[in-house]
């Protein structure tokens, strides 16, 4: 198989403009003859569905939520980047591009990232026009804050609810199209498979979660905007329902999965409190603008924080990375926290925590200003922990947060299966081995509002579509397969619940394929995962039937896919004999513990081809060519 990224020629700055000029157009009157399925109504899916419907295409949108507004994007707190340079502090498209490539540890595709930086400014304009209530200064102009990995202020925000407000903007735009009859919305529907006919993606199999009915839905193209797979770790900051099924099923139908081992561990989350814990809660990175991170200098110091004098505190990020300090990128800040805790200097129960302290900021700016900036985050922290962060420093610990890996796509965001497009967190394209804060919202909306409307048209305009109905043998076979899967799961009648398998898989992945990985651990995981999968298919129990609302069955179906996908992740992590961004292999580090990349051997995207359950996937390499930036060792010192 040949991987063609289809990056347009010409200078970086002109690629996207030139490409748009070259893409064939679909005549306005013909647009209504084309249909497209969009799976997912998060930022990427809702923005795509709305925009494609505005253009005149017939859109069907699917989500497993009871309302499109509940997609996981809603939980994003901190903000969205854009190269507006409203602050006059030296920002530019180039700088956002460079920061993103560098932040991703030089493992992203230059041309995609540059386009992302270019369209970032239009996103803000579009959202303002929709009525997104971004924070404003007293003069009435848009306000900005700083995020990790950047030395300029380019992050736009709406209190601590930026994702919510952006998603509601996209949701409203989509609901307007639902009202106009251009988007048909399918709530409470879970995609179970992709239908490929004559080598092209032509439909999906979906299960109605209320009645249990499994049916096929056909179209001229399929867009997956189904989010990330962080919940393979069971505990993460993702919403409970986030899962890998849609992308993994597409993978099993031939789509390559790229860089699955690139996972982001977020440095500022509320530490776990017990083994009943169902998820981890993020405290937005924006807190690092004003909070200072520290641990006691001495090991096992159990004094309360106010009893530890300045001179006995280690503000380790400020010490190790003076120029970025508390705003160092996520992977670096997370590993530094782990190091401090591994060194016995962690705080709180089990020593798995570090302080995020606002005392200085409150002294400097006053409690009112801090409350205005972070009030709702402080309240959330207090609700969960019972401690008041205005008085006692927060305790935080790293947690799984985001997945940079995803289905492989070309410059047009199309996978290697023609007609299958992948947007948002579900694809692998823009963040390399580590994503900078406030860049996921930007990417989701860039893909949905400003990229797919052009590139999908280009695909349609090439023509050659045969008529395909639900009676196509491929469609019927896929439906039967999905039905069989459900009945098999229901007939095992074993002893363990889906959640118990999920928890066990998650803790295995956290231990062996989490913040730091090594050959031994990964090899052990690769041995253990198939055993666990075996047990799952022998000893699972799911009460109830397949023809009713059955939440255990929903979980069972998702965990079944996680149990296969986990193996792919470990395989990728084991093959990548280097450390880069969110992938830290203990064998490959510098003397002072920093990640050691190996550009000679690993400067490529690893795209894996499915070859069967438990059989080693085939690796395809897309070499990453850097023509515009110099491959440097990342330094935030």
């Amino acid at each position, binding site marked *: 198989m040949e991987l063609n990224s289809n990056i347009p020629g010409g200078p970086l700055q002109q690629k996207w403009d030139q490409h748009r000029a070259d893409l064939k157009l679909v005549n306005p009157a013909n647009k209504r003859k084309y249909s497209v399925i969009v799976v997912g109504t998060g930022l990427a899916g809702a923005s795509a569905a709305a925009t494609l419907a505005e253009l005149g295409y017939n859109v069907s949108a699917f989500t497993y939520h009871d309302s499109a507004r509940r997609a996981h994007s809603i939980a994003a707190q901190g903000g969205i980047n854009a190269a507006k340079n409203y602050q006059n502090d030296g920002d530019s498209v180039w700088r956002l591009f460079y920061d993103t490539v560098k932040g991703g540890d030089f493992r992203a595709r230059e041309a995609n990232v540059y386009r992302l930086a270019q369209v970032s400014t239009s996103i803000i304009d579009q959202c303002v026009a929709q009525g997104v209530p971004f924070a404003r200064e007293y003069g009435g102009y848009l306000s900005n804050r700083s995020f990790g990995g950047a030395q300029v202020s380019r992050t736009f925000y709406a209190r601590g609810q930026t994702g919510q407000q952006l998603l509601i903007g996209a949701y409203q735009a989509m609901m307007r199209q639902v009202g106009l009859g251009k988007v048909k919305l399918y709530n409470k529907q879970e995609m179970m498979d992709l239908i490929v006919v004559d080598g092209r993606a032509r439909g999906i199999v979906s299960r109605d979660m209320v009645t249990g009915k499994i049916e096929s839905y056909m179209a001229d193209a399929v867009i997956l905007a189904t989010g990330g797979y962080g919940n393979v770790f069971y505990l993460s900051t993702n919403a409970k329902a986030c899962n890998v099924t849609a992308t993994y099923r597409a993978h099993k139908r031939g789509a390559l999965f790229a860089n699955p081992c690139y996972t982001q561990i977020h440095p500022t989350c509320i530490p776990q409190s017990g083994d009943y814990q*169902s998820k981890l809660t993020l405290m937005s990175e924006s807190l690092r603008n004003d909070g200072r991170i520290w641990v006691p200098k001495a090991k096992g110091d159990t004094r309360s924080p106010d009893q530890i004098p300045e001179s006995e505190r280690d503000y380790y990020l400020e010490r190790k990375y003076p120029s970025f300090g508390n705003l160092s990128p996520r992977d670096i800040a997370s590993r530094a926290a782990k190091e401090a805790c591994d060194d016995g200097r962690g705080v709180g129960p089990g020593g798995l925590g570090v302080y995020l302290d606002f005392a200085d900021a409150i002294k400097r700016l006053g409690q009112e200003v801090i409350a205005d900036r972070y009030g709702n985050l402080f309240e959330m922290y207090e609700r969960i922990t019972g401690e008041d962060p205005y008085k006692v420093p927060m305790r935080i610990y790293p947690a799984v947060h985001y997945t940079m890996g995803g289905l492989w796509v070309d410059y047009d965001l199309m996978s290697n299966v023609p007609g299958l497009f992948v947007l948002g967190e579900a694809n692998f394209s823009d963040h390399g081995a580590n994503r900078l804060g406030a860049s996921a919202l930007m990417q989701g909306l860039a893909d949905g509002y400003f990229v797919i409307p052009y590139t999908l048209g280009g695909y349609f305009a090439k023509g050659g579509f045969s008529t395909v109905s639900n009676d196509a043998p491929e469609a019927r076979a896929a439906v039967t397969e999905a039905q069989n899967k459900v009945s098999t799961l229901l007939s095992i009648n074993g002893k363990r619940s889906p959640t118990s398998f999920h928890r066990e898989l998650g803790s295995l992945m956290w231990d062996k394929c989490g913040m730091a990985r090594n050959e031994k651990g990964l090899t052990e995981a690769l041995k253990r995962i198939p055993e666990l999968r075996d047990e799952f298919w022998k000893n699972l129990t799911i*009460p109830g039937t397949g023809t009713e609302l059955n939440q255990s069955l929903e979980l069972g179906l998702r965990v079944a896919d996680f149990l296969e996908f986990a193996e792919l992740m470990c395989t990728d992590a084991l093959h990548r004999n280097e450390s880069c961004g969110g992938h830290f292999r203990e064998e490959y580090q510098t003397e002072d513990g920093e990640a050691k990349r190996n550009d000679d051997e690993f400067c490529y995207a690893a795209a894996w081809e499915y070859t069967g359950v438990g059989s080693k996937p085939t690796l395809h390499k897309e070499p990453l060519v850097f023509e515009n930036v110099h491959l440097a060792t990342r330094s935030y010192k």
Partner: protein
Amino acid sequence: MNLRLHIWRQAGPDATGMLKTYDVANVSEHMSFLEMLDVLNEDLISKGEIPVAFDHDCREGICGTCGMVINGRPHGPVAKTTVCQLHMRTFKDGDEIYIEPWRARAFPVMRDLVVDRGSLDRIIQKGGFVSVNTGNAQDGNTIPISKLDADRAMDAAACIGCGACVAACPNASAMLFTAAKVGHLASLPQGQAERSTRALHMVLQMDAEGFGACTNHLECEAACPKGISVEFIAQMNRDYLASAIGGRD
């Protein structure tokens, strides 16, 4: 702590439901309310019984998916807190807790504590947006918006669409939800062009869905986990009247 739960069990939309009693032991005060239900459900599964169906997703108080009536109060006893953010430290050993779904004609029960809130989406569909296609926008700083207006818009836009206001209202009215959206867009210059027709169409849809009328009980504001103010209802009524009387459509 040990607790006795009385939970509404209903097998499907057309089945009759009833309260069933469950005892849960060793509940930690650090658990969230939903984690306590998780523990109950794992226990039920291990006994081969059907677990309690309840809706939830983010467990951070932002997606609006969770919702149940606890001892007569939507989202439970703590003000401005969704049930996923409610922690067991609010309860004490030996407590009896009654757990029921949202009850409203426009929210049919699907199973146990899960209701269908599609009616709220259909209200939005009738006008809860600014009609601007992608690509139409001018620079985001072209129209300055005073911080006051932006903050007010944000106050209203904070609604998470959970439906607690409906569950709390003796008339099962969706006025607070609808007014929050109308108020959000009416506070911004971008929302002015469609301002009065928006209120009219959304209120008409609310009636069509079978939500009741507002008779100023103010229970909605008290139950709202996001503290949406009833002032927005008064504002919506003005927009609605302007449109209805002005005969504009």
